């Protein structure tokens, strides 16, 4: 049984409320939204079902965002999936490392509105 697949977004976020807010707003835009609460769960879910875009928190339990990003970008299967890093760390070295590893963007959550987030997701999907 094959049904046409909706665009899938994987949200990796350990904070309950932030995860919920992202989830709800993107679902309203018609995406299929999957949430992982730590790095380990994120990698598991990517393996099970490759998403079209990943929103990745930087500070994560179990496997940190940096390592999740590295794993995604070194695996040929997931290499081309755009990853937007959502962080609250404004340390320049974090930004530099994320972009160097191939993140499509490094966004500070507190500076971002949900409207901005939806635009960024749409744009990233258009490009890829």
């Amino acid at each position, binding site marked *: 049984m094959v049904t046409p697949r909706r665009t899938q977004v994987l949200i990796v976020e*350990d*904070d309950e*409320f*932030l995860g*919920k*807010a*992202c989830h*709800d*707003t993107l679902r*309203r835009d018609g995406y299929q939204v999957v949430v992982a609460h*730590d790095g380990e769960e994120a990698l598991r879910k990517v393996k099970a079902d490759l998403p079209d875009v990943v929103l990745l928190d930087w*500070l*994560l*339990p*179990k496997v*940190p965002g940096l390592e999740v990003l590295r794993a995604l970008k070194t695996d040929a299967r997931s290499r081309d999936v755009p990853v937007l890093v959502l962080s*609250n*760390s*404004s*340390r320049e070295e974090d930004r530099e490392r994320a972009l160097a590893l191939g993140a499509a963007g490094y966004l*500070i*959550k*507190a500076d*971002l*509105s*949900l*409207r901005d987030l939806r635009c960024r997701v749409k744009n990233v999907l258009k490009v890829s």
Partner: protein
Amino acid sequence: MLITKGGSTGPRCTGVEKSSQNAPFAIFPPMTRRAVRKGQKAGSPDGTSPALVDESSYAVVLIGGDSRIGYVSPQAVQITGYRADELIGIDTFTLIHPDDQERMRGLFAALLSRPGATVAAECRGVRKDGSVWRAAARGTNLIDDPGVRAIAVTYRDITEKQHAGDARRTPEEAFRDSEERSRLILASARQAYIAIDAGGVITEWNTAAQFTFGWTRAEAVGRELAALIIPPRYREAHINGLKRFGETGEARIVGRRNEFPALHRDGHEFPVEFSISVLRQGGAYSFHAFVADLTVRARMEAALREGEARIRSIVESTSEGIMFVSSDGRVASVNRRAQEMLAVDHATTEGISFAAVLARIGFREQDQRALSAAAQAVLGGLEEDYQGDVELPARRLVVHWVARAARDSTGFLTGLTFTLRDVTQEREVGRMKSEFVSFVTHQLRTPLAGTKWLLELAADAEDARDVRGYIQDAREVNERMVRLVNDLLDLSRLETGALHVDVEMTDLGALTRSVASELQSVIRQKEHTLSIVGACDVPPVPTDPKLLRQVFSNLLANAVKYTPPGGTIRVTIRRDSEQVTWSVKDTGIGIPARDIPLLFQKFYRAENALAINAEGTGLGLALVRLITERLGGRVWCESEEGQGTTFFCVLPLARGPADGDAAAHASPNR
């Protein structure tokens, strides 16, 4: 030590000479002797006067203490090109070349302060037409002389002489000049110069001799040397020596350096060093000696040594490292602190090129390059100073250095000094500060983003129930932020001792039950079993219940959080004589042994705790420790990774010394 100042090519001052009271006009062209002097040859047989003058070539001016001219002779008018009435009342120095003015002012001031003294100097003057001429001048302070009451200056125009050179002068003039020059040199020598004739009678006695022995020239000349400055016990030997030389030509002390005691006018003896030359003129002979007062030299040497020792001890005791690199690029000295910092010693630095010393110290390559470039720039005169930080990775030191040009009193570059300061701690504090800022920023941004997003969702939601749900969530997130800010404030107050403590008799059992009930929903959700033991057996404790609630709440919440579902959590309250022990034991993930010593530090989070809750603040246990200590108790933990943890909190039953604010304020800040 001879000190020269100013340009070396200009005319020279020949010194200050205190003329004797008996002969104030010795160098002043004496009007009364004009006729006698006229036409006389140099080297006049009386051998007294240094002023071998043809007075017609001399100009005379009398200058008041305010340096204004009071009288001018016709020659002065002629030389300067001004009319007499133009010169009277003007400042003398306006007639002197600007480049020589400062020097001449200095000499004038020196002369003015010493009645009777004489100064001889050459300088350049400026005529009315602006042309420059050269003057050889002598000034005598006759302020005390009731007939004069001025500084009398005689001078002559030596411009021609300067231009013409010696060749054009007659042999007599040349001889006269040379004798005058020698006389001036001897008169102004820094060392005592004495001449005696074959019979031991003093014929020459310069200014320095006057200072050395206390007798003026007028008092000394004509007296027997033996009676004046030779201690009685040596007089006979002296007289015998003179006699022997006269009879046999045998000289025991001539032509070498001798050290003997000498007698001062005031009767004290002091060591002198001297060398004697014999001057033969025709059949006659005389003895000439330069005499050095060794007490003065010894005192100066001691003062110099003391000064050097003082500077060395300052340099050695300072907390800054100091390295001096001389202008040839070699390390000249390294003080003790610099040796400690750089782990070098005298042997591996002094006299060795700075580049080689640098290479040996073990700087990182870029630091070595920076230091080397700084040294080159400063020694090359391109920069006055330079500074930066260097790291010594092997010894975990960060050193701030300043390279500064070292110059002598004339501004000549003699090398460079490196001052070194250990800033390891400062930089560490700076790093911690910026880490703290980035931590707090991160911690505050998470709830800020949460509130913002949830309210945005609420605003866009159509279903009223959704709106309420989002607003409820936003309030919860907001509450979390309030707690975080309060924790940070409490921490800061505890650290500075500014937190207020309200002591009241507190039932620890009731407090524990109250804290547990707040956590009831999470405990039930994780299916933990919680028990509280011994709550009824403990009397009320004098403590601050609000602060203690934070301690219990943090410890119990941790137990719930870091224990996998279905765990057992047991709180025990026990009285041991003068204290109460409150403990909470869980069956959680435990704490790795290496994390335990650091557990109660601010922002520190155990590795396995990070994996469970990445967003934890690392403030909870720091607060627990600071509060417990503030309440006069202490806190610690026992744990085995994978098995569980027990936190212990001990509180005094009697009011301890840390109770009350006065005690807290007196205690040192942490």
